[in-house]
């Protein structure tokens, strides 16, 4: 079946470092169970954190959670429920920074975990850029597959809103 290619987005980068099957599913708009409690909690945190800051900066296909300008520098923040998957989160935010950089905007990134009252800085460097390039290619490759990659039981399945879909 002919299928229109979806562009690589920050969300896909996030999923790429957790589960490749999720990348394919999300890329084909097969979204996870929306009534899953973790998803509801994530949505709640997203909607109810950092009320005083400006929300949602949209550039291209990316949507950044919060942003502010401090000392003439743009700071974009990505809000996460927990720091458990911080590598995923770092790469997602780095992807946004790269998108901004491609448009000539220099920015700093902050990963925010409101429930843990934690904040992590993310800065682009050569290594991260290279890794992002690799990930983007891999994602495009996954999305072009006729079928999603087979489900694998990993640690993440326990709390995943796709679990019932994958293991039914």
């Amino acid at each position, binding site marked *: *079946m002919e*299928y229109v290619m979806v562009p690589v987005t920050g969300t896909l980068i996030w999923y790429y470092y957790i589960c490749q099957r999720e990348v394919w599913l999300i890329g*084909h*708009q*097969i*979204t996870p*169970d*929306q*009534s899953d409690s973790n998803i509801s909690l994530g949505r709640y945190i997203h909607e109810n954190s950092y009320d005083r800051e400006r929300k949602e900066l949209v550039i291209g296909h990316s949507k950044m959670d919060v942003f502010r300008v401090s000392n003439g520098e743009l700071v974009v923040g990505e809000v996460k429920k927990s720091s458990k998957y911080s590598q995923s989160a770092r790469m997602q935010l780095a992807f946004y920074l790269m998108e901004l950089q491609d448009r000539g905007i220099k920015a700093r990134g902050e990963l925010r975990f409101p429930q843990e009252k934690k904040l992590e800085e993310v800065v682009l460097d050569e290594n991260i850029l290279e890794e992002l390039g690799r990930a983007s290619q891999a994602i495009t490759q996954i999305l072009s597959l*006729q*079928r*999603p990659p087979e489900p694998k039981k990993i640690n993440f399945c326990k709390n995943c809103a796709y*679990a*019932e*879909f994958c*293991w*039914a």
Partner: protein
Amino acid sequence: MKKTIYIFSDGELHRKDNTLCFEKEKEKRYIPIEDTGEIMAFGEININKRLLEFLSQKEILLHYFNHYGYYMGTFYPREHLNSGFMILKQAEHYMDQTLRLKIAIEYIRGGGKNIRQVLKYYQGRGRYVGDKLEAIEKLLLDIDQQQDIPSLMAVEGNIRSWYYKGFDDIICDTNFVFEERSRRPPKNFLNTLISFGNSIMYSICLSEIYKTHLDPRIGYLHATNFRRFSLNLDVSEIFKPILIDRTIFSLLARKMITAKDFDRDANGVLLKEKGKKCFIHALEEKLKTTINHRDLGRPVSYRRLIRLELYKLEKHLMGEKTYTPFIARW
């Protein structure tokens, strides 16, 4: 899990601030919106556009039933889970006769095997249903050989007629004889119960489909005309025997529903409100019952099993895993 709200009385259902309110003559009842999964309206209820907007926003389906408890329709908020990929796959499997037949066969097989399971249970309890079981076992073997949907439906019809022959042996109550399957209107008490239960089953399946990426207008066993929902009828085939029929048998055996719970009018036999409530209560209990799911490694309710069944269909359509229906083991 979110609750199903059943409304039997007449009154007005409206949005009150950020929640739902059902107002009867003297009484006001608030319904927590975040805890509501779907609404089943049996009574005469007045609604307005503001309510419909609210229900759409919260992705809540409103199913309505007529005076006789028949499913009439659903207020179906706009689709919120769109996957072009899935719809194309669904259509592909409908348009190709071989692919369509493959899925239809599984639905008949699932329904038939669950029917067999119900009969087996009652055979174990000393009811005389052996001859029906034998006939059904034979028919189950025929399913695979069918070359088209009409002949498949004919096998299904035969299975069902043997199954219904067993009803009198199972129920053993002269007030509730089966006679023949009569619909619109049902002519006797038992048929009224079956119709009522099936109506609810169809709407529950529709609600579950709404939470997946499947389009309820494309069914495989039941013909699609792209106007009426038909996928929910397909999925119901599997669950009707183990959920609806079993509920009926147990309610009658415990005399929780008796001849007194029915009214007869010019158009047929009606289940009174008390009877409907009793039925729904028992069914809801059943839907909440959990069983251990081996592959998932956690307990799932019967209601959830319906959703899993849809996920299995999605995976079949994606070419990932061949669909096999849920068969009760007890």
